[in-house]
């Protein structure tokens, strides 16, 4: 009856989102008076999960699962859920987890709520809060099935440390044949991704041209942030499409979002509003972004950003 959490890893290491969903699972398990079991695939060392409230780890080690396959992974989690008689399953909002979740939901006849932003407000009936209308509102959703799947929004719950320890058990589920096969992967492995980042530094058309992105990248580097951009910037080919954020681009739910030379059009804000703290740097005090931001600098990015980089370097050196 324990709460099952799928803790994702990459090249053997748990993603930050895995530790966050483990923290969330612990909170739900406390509400239900039960324990947390994690299912992990090809992780090198599972002991860290104990620090985030996991009691037991079902550890799968299988080379067939080296590349992600939504159907196979959903199947593995389903078998783990059945093994544990889990009634609540927690996953993250990574691209992979969102891909497998609906398959898992059908497989387990489970109701699924995605992008959940807080611990359940009630467990009977089981009620969770999630954004709707592209962050313009929240919906309180009740899950009425016996088995429930909760997808937790990135950075919504945070990491909650715990002084427990997790026992590990080898788990050898049956792996179905793959019907979707990865041919090639094109991914920068040395950069923080927008999905995982706690801080995102984003540039807009106000930066005038791609040659001016050096300072954006430097600022991101100082902060350990991911870089992003507005839609016109990617449309103009100044930056890759994978950096385009907003309603038609990637959603951002970081702790800090820094918008530089971005006007703050509603379609842009729709995609980044889930970020907790927003900073805008813009020459135009009338730019709509100032209404959405927590902190603002009315000023020229070409002066403000290099100076901000220096100040931040000094700050980091002091820490």
């Amino acid at each position, binding site marked *: 009856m324990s709460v099952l959490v799928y803790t994702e890893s990459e090249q053997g290491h748990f993603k930050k989102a895995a530790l966050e969903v483990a923290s969330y699972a612990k909170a739900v398990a406390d509400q239900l008076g039960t324990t947390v079991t994690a299912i992990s695939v090809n992780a090198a060392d599972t002991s860290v999960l104990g620090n985030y409230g996991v009691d037991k780890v079902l550890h799968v080690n299988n080379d067939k699962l080296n590349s992600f396959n939504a159907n196979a992974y959903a199947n593995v989690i389903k078998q783990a859920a059945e093994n544990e008689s889990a009634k609540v399953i927690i996953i993250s909002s990574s691209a992979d987890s969102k891909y497998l979740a609906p398959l898992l939901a059908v497989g387990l006849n489970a109701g699924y709520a*995605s992008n959940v932003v807080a611990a359940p407000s009630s467990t009977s009936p089981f009620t969770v809060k999630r954004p*709707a209308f592209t962050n313009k509102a929240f919906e309180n959703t009740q899950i*009425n*099935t016996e088995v429930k799947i909760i997808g937790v929004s990135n950075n919504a719950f945070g990491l909650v440390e715990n002084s427990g320890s997790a026992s590990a058990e080898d788990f050898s589920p049956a792996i179905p044949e793959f019907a979707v096969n990865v041919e090639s992967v094109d991914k920068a492995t040395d950069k923080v*991704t927008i*999905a995982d980042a706690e801080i995102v530094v984003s540039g807009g058309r106000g930066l005038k041209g791609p040659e001016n992105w050096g300072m954006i990248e430097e600022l991101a580097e100082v902060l350990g942030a991911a870089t992003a951009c507005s839609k016109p910037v990617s449309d103009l080919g100044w930056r890759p499409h994978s950096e385009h954020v907003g309603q038609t*681009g990637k959603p951002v739910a970081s702790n*800090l979002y820094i918008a530089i030379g971005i006007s703050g059009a509603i379609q842009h804000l729709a995609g980044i509003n889930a970020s907790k703290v927003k900073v805008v740097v813009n020459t135009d005090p009338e730019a709509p972004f100032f209404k959405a931001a927590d902190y603002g*600098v009315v000023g020229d990015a070409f002066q403000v950003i290099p100076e901000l980089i220096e100040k931040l370097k000094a700050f980091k050196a002091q820490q």
Partner: protein
Amino acid sequence: MKILVCISHVPDTTSKINFTEDNTKFDANGVQFVINPYDEFGLTRAMWFKEKQGASVDVVNVGGPETEPTLRKALAIGADAAIRINTVATDAFSVAKQLAHVVSNGGYDLVIAGRESIDYNGGMVPGMLAALTNANFVNSCIGLEIDGTSAKAVREIDGGKETVSTSLPLVVGGQKGLVEESDLRIPNMRGIMMARKKPLTVSEPVEASPETQSVSFEKPAPKGAVTLVSPDNLDELVSLLHNEAKVI
């Protein structure tokens, strides 16, 4: 190849969102509805398959009569026929069940849906539909080629993309990249005239009970005014982000 494009009927992003009946119902009053942007990319890609590979393209919506103008717009863009399943779309699972029935009965080879709908932002229907119809599934699809019964798709992953090979029958959850913004089509007069004569079939729903239920809505707490920092005093910004916001 028979293609079905799933069309979600959603408020335009610029709409003001309000709720009625003690914050339990979305207030559609005065709201302009559009084809879900992710579905529009998919529909436009379907038009390419129609024109270049001779595919037939139907569109489907699960919803009440109010969604018909949205389906007519899809016909004006070039779809051959539209189907409306006459029931209120409650949760993703029951919508997927209705769509599964249409897919199985219609013998569709390829189903193109959107990565998520911009109203309830579930991102659930395409995957559930794939599971219910035993079709292969590619989510966050940003590129799709079909050759006979083989498919090559590009999927967006966190931090990049990957190319996958699979086969029909296939369901994709699509987004920008399937086509570019500049490929989107505004229906012309001829398209609109022709759309009036194209079939829009209304079917009654099959039995499907929802698994989740929306109990109430709330608006985000009103945001306080922005704290302005002078460009000559960026130390203050660093200090605010560290001490007040606690994000660095």
